[in-house]
């Protein structure tokens, strides 16, 4: 279910948010890169949920604990607070009901970590403004007619959704086009304009 094929600079950022030996559910675990990274460097008890059967079979063959499933439908089967962290990386925009999915993440995990491509990035804005066409960038490599991404949002939109769901943003990181973190002291509008991707650590009170 990992949707965008770029180098996934966000994985390191996500991994850094997770303490060793945590129980982690990676929703949209793709080829298992994050789970493998966490297993190798943090000895986490990791599980994955992945939409593509091919991805799942490869993960299991590599010794990862992954099942085939759909974030929109299958999160309901997980118990409340069953994991220390639930990760949704680069997948939120491909879900049918992002609000419900985010709500489930906050129910299943003590913390939720969500990363997504920022639709408010200046390149995206510029592309639409100048060319008048749906943007195709490194992080959003699909044309409008064949994209699995159906619910884009900007960093600002996402923060609003978190408020609506009663989630507290414990940490947030925006990454620029080079994958560099944008200074924490920068205001939201700056992030929203220059962040190509964002990673949020959330908790529900």
């Amino acid at each position, binding site marked *: 279910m990992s949707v965008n094929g770029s180098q996934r600079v966000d994985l390191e950022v996500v991994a850094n948010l997770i303490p060793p030996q945590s129980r982690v559910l990676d929703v949209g675990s793709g080829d298992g890169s994050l789970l493998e990274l966490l297993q190798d460097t943090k000895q986490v*008890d990791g*599980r994955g949920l992945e939409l593509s*059967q091919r991805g*799942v*079979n490869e*993960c*299991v*063959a*590599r*010794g*990862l*604990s*992954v*099942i*085939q*499933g759909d974030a929109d439908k*299958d999160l309901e*089967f*997980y*118990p409340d607070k*069953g994991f220390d962290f639930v990760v949704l990386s680069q997948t939120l925009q491909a879900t049918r009901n992002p609000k419900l999915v985010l709500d489930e993440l906050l129910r299943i995990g003590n913390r939720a970590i969500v990363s997504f491509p920022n639709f408010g990035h200046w390149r995206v804005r510029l592309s639409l403004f100048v060319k008048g066409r749906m943007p195709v960038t490194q992080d959003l490599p699909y044309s409008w007619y064949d994209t699995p991404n159906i619910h884009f949002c900007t960093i600002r939109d996402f923060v609003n959704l978190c408020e609506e769901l009663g989630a507290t943003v414990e940490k947030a990181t925006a990454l620029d086009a080079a994958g560099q973190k944008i200074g924490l002291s920068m205001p939201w509008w700056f992030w929203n304009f220059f962040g190509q991707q964002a990673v949020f650590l959330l908790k529900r009170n």
Partner: protein
Amino acid sequence: MAALRAGKTNNEADQPSSPVLRFGADKPLKLDAGTLLSPFQIAYQTYGTLNDARSNAILVCHALTGDQHVANTNPVTGKPGWWEVLIGPGRIIDTNRFFVICSNVIGGCLGSTGPASTNPATGKPYGLDLPVITIRDMVRAQQMLIDHFGIEKLFCVLGGSMGGMQVLEWASSYPERVFSALPIATGARHSSQNIAFHEVGRQAVMADPDWHGGKYFENGKRPEKGLAVARMAAHITYLSEAALHRKFGRNLQDREALTFGFDADFQIESYLRHQGMTFVDRFDANSYLYMTRSMDYFDLAADHGGRLADAFAGTKTRFCLVSFTSDWLFPTEESRSIVHALNAAGASVSFVEIETDRGHDAFLLDEPELFAAINGFIGSAARARGLSA
């Protein structure tokens, strides 16, 4: 083939060509039917060596008509073991590394107490005097076998179809004794369609005049025709339409044209007749009744107040489930509902659905994706268990 044809009784049932563990009056087997089975015996095979920590044992559970000869030449048929493609020195389940145990289930006919075994009370085969055996009874007996080896915790329990039901029962009844569980092409219950097919098979056996109410050994005959028909019907459910079509189509058998009679004109007819005939050489008809019944009765959720997740509450066992796209006996949905229950119980679970047109029987065949999944799962479980490669 000698074993069943040799005499009026089934020699393999009482004196199998494999090790046997006998339990006397002091250790009866408590049956779900409410009675005790005593004395009783379990026939088994082992491969490899149990390590000093007794932590490398893998229990393999056989399917409906399987037996303990999982990785050695079958003494009855002379054919290779039923999972020799998977288990052996240097194979995916490497017997240089793991200690593999496979037992004939209670109710079977190759050395564990079953309807073909001699009833000590009468000196004659049990026939239908044997109480109905459940999957849980089989597992209870296996557990006594594992005790005998001094194994506290099995590294892995695996099996397909009815064997998969036993795996689920093991993980549910003895979670602290199962480090990892690999149920393949199975379900947490038998569907009504599956029960229906089994009933057809049982009725075929019981309609055979040579069945004699189950006391056929005493009459020196066996209900071979009925059992062969049961096997033919069941065999169709193990395959898929696509595989049948690919293999046989409407091809004719050893002839140029239809005979306008009821000989085996089509290759598929001839194939099924062959399957039926070879089956009666190696399997006991009453045992077939008992085995099918055990699967029909299996309903793990019902045993836990109707909620399957409760069957696995608090489990620490690592699970990997496997299903096949063309399996219509245990379709993927059956596995998926187990996966959901395991998720709800907070269990560690992997789930692989393998695309194949070979139907239910795919688990017995050389399926590279199946082997890759088993290899990956066993490997990571071995690392977690601290077993060196």
